[in-house]
């Protein structure tokens, strides 16, 4: 039953992605001002909205690890796997945003990059979570999970500050290029529908890879525990 449910979920996710692609590329009308390039928004914006969700999941995992690590070690391990999976999927989505954004910017603004508030915020968040993943890679050993959880909390704490600082930065010195945000009003119902289908599809896809990554990390933890046990008994 469980297996059937997961196969069904994967099938639905793939169907949603295909349907979202069809909606974005064939159904939604061409943007009168920007032309075909505007279709990149159907990927850019859902990913941008969702990476916050995955970083939030990572924060929940980090806090969970720190609060359970002495009382319920098994639950703490699960929380740590969740923190890692959330950060990885978040970095992945953030990378998609940082790749599709300049592709669009080159056509619409004529430049690849500008130090605009949203761009800077996203880049700094990406840097913080990449450093979190690097830290997990470098700091081996049992204390790594504790240290990573602490760093995860610090990174999440930085996010609102980065956001505020960028708003102040750019309100004092207006940027030369200030594109109207994608949410400055989608009037066409077909565009809105395509956009909503893509949010749903990317949410389903993100949760799928999150769960897969989480289960992989749990397997790693179990193998490591068995190996540690064997080394003790040898």
């Amino acid at each position: 039953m469980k297996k059937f449910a997961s196969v069904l979920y994967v099938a639905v996710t793939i169907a949603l992605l295909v349907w979202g692609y069809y909606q974005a590329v064939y159904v939604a009308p061409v943007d009168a001002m920007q032309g075909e390039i505007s279709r990149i928004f159907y990927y850019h914006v859902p990913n941008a909205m969702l990476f916050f969700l995955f970083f939030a999941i990572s924060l929940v995992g980090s806090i969970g690890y720190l609060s359970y690590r002495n009382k319920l070690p098994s639950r703490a391990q699960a929380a740590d796997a969740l923190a890692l999976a959330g950060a990885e999927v978040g970095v992945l989505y953030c990378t998609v945003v940082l790749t599709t954004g300049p592709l669009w910017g080159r056509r619409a603004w004529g430049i690849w990059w500008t130090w605009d508030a949203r761009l800077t915020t996203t880049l700094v968040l990406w840097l913080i979570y990449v450093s979190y993943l690097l830290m997990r890679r470098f700091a081996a050993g049992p204390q790594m999970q504790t240290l990573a959880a602490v760093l995860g909390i610090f990174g999440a704490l930085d996010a609102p500050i980065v956001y505020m600082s960028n708003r102040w930065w750019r309100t004092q010195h207006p940027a030369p290029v200030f594109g109207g945000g994608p949410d400055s009003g989608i009037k066409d119902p077909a565009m809105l529908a395509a956009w909503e289908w893509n949010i749903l599809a990317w949410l389903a896809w993100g949760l799928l890879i999150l769960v897969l990554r989480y289960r992989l990390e749990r397997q790693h933890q179990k193998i490591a525990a068995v190996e540690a046990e064997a080394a003790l008994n040898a």
Partner: protein
Amino acid sequence: MTKALWTHLVKDLRIEWRSLDAIISMLFFSGLVVVLFSIAFDPRGAFSQQIAGGVLCVATMFASVSALNQAWAREIRHQVMDAQRMVPAPGSELLLAKVIVNFLFVSIVQVLLAPFFFVFYNLQIAGQAWLLVVVLPLGTWALVSNGVFFAALSMSSRNRELLLSLILFPIFIPALLAMVQATTAIFTGESDPTLWIKMLLGYDIIFTTVSLLLFDVVFHAE
């Protein structure tokens, strides 16, 4: 201010006074950064006023990493760290003592570096110069309090000296932005630095509090 904090403070100051390792290496390194930036950007006229704030902050940041790496490394020998863990005083006092000591070191370096800086960049301060006495310590505190904390965090890793820079710089970016904007505003006198000073103050309060709260977790991580 308790006795444990004072003991740690005096001990670290005495070690530094006898060797002067941290201050000399930081001073030379930040001097090098200032020279390298002058060569890279050819600062003349109004342009030097524009970039001087940024160069000063980045030079401080790079230089302080060399001292921060040493902050805990000298405790490893003879199992001092393990002894520190068994001390009944809370770990946050040890952290605070280290932060204060390194804050003093970096501030001394900034004061010694200032004259060279003014000479190399032909600086004239157009804004209110006394505000520098507020901005630089606030920015330095943000750098050092996070730096000492993350140095402790990266102690157990294989390549801790690399890891410290990798995790400190991204977290420090908002404070660096505020510090650079505030010093540039003071040097050029074109805008008001008050907003950035408030932001630095907020950053300092938030991150120092969280560091003190979470330090025991990092310190006793086994």
